[in-house]
């Protein structure tokens, strides 16, 4: 039996003395180990870069290279800013993001699925341009009036789009690629039609990609510093910059979380290698760990929350986003505040009743009848304040109800398990339920709820509801024993049917004004059958009696609530869109997005096919090569002892993981997706293309390498030129337009 040989070695902090000392691989292979012959030769020449071992961020750029970089930036400026004011009307999602700028300027609360940073930056530009917030960006194609500084607003994404170009150059150089490679990569970015289109409009993707690129650049710089010497000032600087940039990318769009995951994976790899390096004592390792936790977790969260703090500070007034938020949250908005209301609920109280779990609002009735079922008066949930939300609490006698004068009768509090009725103040009918199926949720366990009664009719037992208190407010000790305004959360059980007053996110048809359905549910899910009283008045309660109001929520609770709402709204975006697409179609650039059409001119988001397909080919190539390496390693081939292979495997591996993490999660998302969701992944794929170019041409002479790069660049620029009318809404002949349809599925010409 196994137990005989199961003895485990005793605790051993170091290998037993009998073994030969293990051959620890040095943490960093000699820096020039991977260099090919001509580079070694170059290094050996006098005046080479070898002397400056501690380059800032590992970037060793000669001064001529800085001039080259400046030239590329000027080129990118021309490509991105050309004719920025055209089209002079609202394009695609400018409808949303332009509108949000207006809301910030008026401080009107709105809810959107994206975090606020990029929208705040756009607003900043709008304010600089003197935008008064009156233009509403209502629909695509609406011409901009002269007082809307839309060109300035567009220039922010455009400039950030330009910023990506030098970042790509420097990142590739930081990854130890050659200048020719960096030139190729940055020009590919410059002439990628999709990135150009997306950055020339008031959209969030350009800031997102900029911050993604910035993060990758900072991380590469940090990794280089880490190689040279940890815990220097520069090391801390690069690490902190990475963290700040991570915070910014996540504050633009949640897709930024994928960037965080990418850096997280790379960090774990670094820490894992450090752990295996016995020259790093545990204490130093811990320092490494804590430094990264501080800068890459705490710092981004702080940035993210700070952005939301600014968001809340700007949006102080009530607006069209109120309905998404809880009543407490709305209390913090100007124009939505509620006056204090009396705390004690008793028979005769005039109240409004609010549903806890949905933002559907108040129990409501109006003088319209159900067209189905009993044909009695409708009961709904209505989100806005209205006189038809008011109900009076009466005692639930099963027969005969004397006229009450609540102004003189002794107060009788409403306690747990008490039988009560609700009389609708304006129509004098009572909340009623019976064994009739509701209009929409026509299933056997649901009963219709109606308002029933007529003058002189004292009501019947189907008007009676039993109060079942679920929980009270911990700050109000009475609230768990009897009904208290705002404090008590309770269910209402129908006395005869045993069903619970219930509502859910189901809208009534037009005859019910698309208000939310209210039913009485025999198997009620608890969360949707909870209610509380929001306002309360009673003839005998005066100024001196106890009053209550919502407690103003803290920043943290507002922050969490908003993020929760964003999450559920985002997950609910599952409807199809005419130009949506699924992730598998992105790799091959199957289809673009129609952004704007007018007078036979067209803005159509489509990538530069040459660059796009090359980038996909690069990913596939690396994956195949890496797969082959895995198979060979299993067959004991020692490829990975070759520092040349290791160098490129590390560069390409990092970029491919970045690509994968920015791409794959979309497969499991069920929300509607668009081609531009691929752009962050595309950025990684283009860098990977450049890295593979670097690998493939490493044995070439510099001149030939430059020529190969030149050919690729010319091909890319030609394609960019070919498709530029779609990017810049330029003039095109019908024939040229049809001829440009390289794939049948590109639907830009009709």
């Amino acid at each position, binding site marked *: *039996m*196994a137990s005989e040989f199961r003895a485990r*070695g005793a605790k051993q902090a170091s290998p037993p003395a009998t073994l030969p000392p293990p051959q620890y691989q040095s943490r960093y292979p000699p820096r020039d180990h991977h260099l090919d012959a001509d580079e070694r030769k170059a290094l050996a020449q006098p005046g080479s870069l070898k002397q400056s071992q501690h380059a800032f961020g590992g970037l060793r750029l000669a001064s001529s290279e800085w001039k080259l970089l400046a030239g590329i930036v000027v080129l990118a400026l021309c490509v991105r800013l050309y004719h920025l004011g055209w089209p002079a009307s609202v394009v695609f999602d400018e409808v949303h993001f332009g509108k949000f700028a207006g809301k910030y300027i008026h401080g009107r609360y709105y809810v959107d699925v994206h975090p606020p940073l990029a929208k705040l930056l756009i607003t900043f530009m709008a304010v600089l341009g003197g935008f008064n917030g009156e233009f509403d960006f209502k629909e695509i194609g609406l011409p901009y009036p002269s007082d809307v500084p839309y060109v300035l607003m567009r220039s922010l994404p455009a400039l950030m789009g330009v910023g990506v170009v030098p970042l790509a150059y420097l990142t590739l150089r930081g990854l130890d690629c050659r200048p020719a490679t960096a030139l190729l990569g940055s020009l590919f970015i410059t002439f990628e039609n999709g990135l150009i289109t997306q950055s020339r409009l008031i959209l969030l993707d350009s800031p997102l990609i900029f911050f993604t690129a910035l993060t990758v650049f900072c991380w590469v710089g940090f990794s280089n510093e880490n190689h040279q010497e940890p815990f220097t000032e520069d090391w801390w600087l690069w690490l902190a910059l990475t963290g700040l940039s991570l915070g910014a990318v996540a504050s633009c769009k949640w897709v930024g979380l994928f960037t965080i995951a990418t850096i997280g994976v790379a960090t774990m790899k670094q820490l894992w290698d450090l752990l*295996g390096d016995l020259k790093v004592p545990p204490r130093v390792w811990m320092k490494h760990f804590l430094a990264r936790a501080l800068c890459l977790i705490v710092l981004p969260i702080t940035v993210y929350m700070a952005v939301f703090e600014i968001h809340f500070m700007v949006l102080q007034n009530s607006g069209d986003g109120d309905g998404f938020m809880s009543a407490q949250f709305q209390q913090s908005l100007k124009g939505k505040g509620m006056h204090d209301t009396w705390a004690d609920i008793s028979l005769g109280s005039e109240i409004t009743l609010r549903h806890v779990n949905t933002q559907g609002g108040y129990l409501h009735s109006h003088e319209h009848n159900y067209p189905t079922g009993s044909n009695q008066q409708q009961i709904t949930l209505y989100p806005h304040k209205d006189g038809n939300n008011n109900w009076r609490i009466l005692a639930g006698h099963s027969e005969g109800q004397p006229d009450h004068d609540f102004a003189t009768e002794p107060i009788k509090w409403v306690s747990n398990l008490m039988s009560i009725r609700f009389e609708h103040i304006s129509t004098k009918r009572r909340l009623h339920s019976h064994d009739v199926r509701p209009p929409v949720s026509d299933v056997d366990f649901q009963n219709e709820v109606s308002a029933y009664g007529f003058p002189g009719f004292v009501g019947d037992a189907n008007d009676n509801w039993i109060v079942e208190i679920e929980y009270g407010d911990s700050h109000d000790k009475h609230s768990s024993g009897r009904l208290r305004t705002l404090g008590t959360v309770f269910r209402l059980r129908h006395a005869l049917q045993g069903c619970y007053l219930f509502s*859910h996110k189901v809208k009534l*048809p037009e005859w019910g004004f698309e208000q939310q359905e209210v039913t009485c549910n025999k198997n009620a899910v*608890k969360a949707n059958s909870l209610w509380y009283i929001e306002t309360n008045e009673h003839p005998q309660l005066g100024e001196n009696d106890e009053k209550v109001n919502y407690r103003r929520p803290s920043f943290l609770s507002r922050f969490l609530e908003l993020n929760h709402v964003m999450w559920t709204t985002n997950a609910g975006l599952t409807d199809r869109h005419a130009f949506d697409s699924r992730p598998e179609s992105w790799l091959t650039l199957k289809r673009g997005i129609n952004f704007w059409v007018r007078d036979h001119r067209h803005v159509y988001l489509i990538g530069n096919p040459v660059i796009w397909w090359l980038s996909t080919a690069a990913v596939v190539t690396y994956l195949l090569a890496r797969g082959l390496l895995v198979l060979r390693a299993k*067959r004991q081939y020692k490829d990975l002892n070759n520092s040349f292979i290791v160098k490129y495997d590390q560069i390409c591996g990092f970029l491919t993981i970045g690509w994968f993490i920015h791409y794959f999660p979309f497969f499991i998302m069920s929300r509607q997706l668009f081609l531009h969701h691929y752009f962050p992944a595309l950025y990684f794929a283009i860098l990977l293309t450049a890295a593979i170019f670097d690998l493939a041409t490493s044995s070439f002479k510099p001149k030939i390498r430059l020529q190969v790069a030149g050919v690729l660049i010319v091909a890319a620029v030609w394609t960019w030129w070919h498709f530029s009318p779609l990017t810049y809404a330029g003039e095109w002949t019908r024939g040229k337009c049809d001829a440009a349809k390289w794939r049948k599925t590109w639907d830009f010409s009709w």
Partner: protein
Amino acid sequence: MSSHLSGELYEEYSELIPPLIYTILSCYTRFYHIGKANSVVWDEAHFGKFGSYYLKRSFYFDVHPPLGKILVGLAGWLSGYDGNYDFPSGSAYPPEVPYIPMRVMLAMFGAAMVPLAWFTSVELHLSKKACHLVTLMTLCDLAWICISRFILLDSMLLFFTFTTVFCMTKWNNQQWRPFSFDWWLWLGMTGWSIGCVVSVKWVGFFVTALVGAYTIEDLWEKFGDLKMPIRVYIKHWIARGLCLIVLPAIVYMASFKAHFMILNHSGSGDSQMSSLFQANLVGNDFATNPLEIAIGSKVTFKNVGYGGGLLHSHVQTYPVGSLQQQVTCYHYKDDNNNFNLVRPWGHPEYNPNEDLEFLKDGSVIRFQHASTMRNLHAHMVAAPVTKENWEISGYGNATTGDHNDLWQLEVVDDIILGNKKNLKDRIRSLTTRIRFRHLTMGCYMRAANAVLPPWGFKQVEVSCDKENNPKDQHTWWNVESHWNDRLPSGNQKLYKSPFLSDFWHLNVAMMTSNNALVPDPDKEDILASTPSEWPWLHTGLRMCGWGDDQIKFYLLGHPLIWWGGTLSLILSLFILAVYMLRMQRHYVDWKAGEWDHFLYVGKVAFFGWFFHYVPFLIMGRVTYLHHYLPTLYFAVIMLGHFFDHFVFSARRLSENVKTGVFIFTYAVIVGVWWWFKDIAIVSAFLNLFGTRRNSASGLPVQLIRIKIHESSIGYH
């Protein structure tokens, strides 16, 4: 000499003494008072009834594969049951139903779990003490006991899950001599066992995934073995392909073959199958329907696609889109499936005295819903679920309508006659396959497996597909029932429905029905539970009515086993992390082979649990506590593995400590079992539980309440 011999014999058989004792105990716990509750408990209402169908040989439909239910039928047959009881839930068994022998036979599967657990632990090379603990936990888990004692499929599912793991571990231990007889034997047994477990319930695919993962890892390791010639390596692949893919597939299909062979009479499940299959059942009269379709005929249409139903309409209207009358695809036969075939608007109305006008390829007609007189109608309104298609509705009446009510028949082929030319401009019922093309929009009527929301009673959506895919069988229809007084009744020579097509048809139908078992978000189901509640045994399951004078069963696990198993699984990740960090730091904790063995047992337990648990998190369908029961086995193995690793095989602990821990654990498990045994074996405690979710305090309080109330009850 003889004493030497008997000593040898003792050596050889002494190992069998503990499993023998455990088996006896296991039989005792599974069989004791098995007939005391003489009413139909829990899903006996289903599975007893399904067993009866095999005895009556009448075709039925269910979401589970047939093997388990065939075995129920077999148990009934062996007990002399005639199959004429329909197992109404909660009612008392009449004297002629031999429910006790049936329950005993099925409980034997449950009893066999205990020796299997023992032998599996031995094959996993756990220490003796750990083997005892794993077996004891299998013996004492209340949920396993409880579920084994009734006419249900779970005891069989558990049994075959256990045999699969057992065969796999047995085979693993033969790996040092590949292609030997024993190696082939256990590989084949693994495959057979996979076939059986999958044929009982689809949950069996999860244990199949475990075997698959093990096999892939094994082949990967062999790939790295430079000493193995490539021919041998290929032989390894082929052997596994044969035994682990082909063999299980054969077993699975054989169970369906038996299912079709036994159930050769028309019954409640007919309508789930193709028209041709139904026509071949004894008691079905499709073949005597009039053969050729004419104007004035009343017909039902069957969708040819796998799992397709009958074209249906009812008075309820769409709450979205056009708000007109719903048209759906529905599997049950009723009068709402009947359509009259009438001429287009503007043509003379059908007159029973005129010459018969037979329909042919290209005829344009109107479908009139027989009970509501509405016309089958399509228009440019997006369909409710498949938004990219147009909606099909019932519109107008016998006198009002428009050109959107007209459909053109396009004959695809005829199953018997083949090419449509052979039909000679006629359309036959049952065998001719037709497509319906909307005359004005050119779209095709299609019913795939898109299910309507509750307002459509979860029936299948019918829509008009803009894309013309002539090969898409979901746009193919055939006439199933056909009434026309003026036509002679047919005497069609029947074509046998091919087995493979029936097999696929039934499996697709099972899949569709299974996916339609989604919980209503508005309805609180006190029996259902979510997967997150299972590992901590947050909730139990009432298995029968809760009347005061009733014997009650409450499906609830042995708390220590469930909690301990879950803890050990969480701990396993933590321990793995610690060991890997230490390895990266170059600590040497293990002797050669130890680490691999530690990982092997851990992987079997962890991935077994993982594959059985995670799919339930993603599944949309309603889940119950008993879905966790196969999963629990792997938690138990992990718990045994951890006891072994940290106590029984630990070098730093003295033998006395190990024995002490062993005895203590053993006693506690038995003690807790004794405390709770009545909820599973025969319990008759009085009304204890309020509404389940009312007690925020959760399980521990419930457990105490069980005991308090139980003390005051006698058996009824």
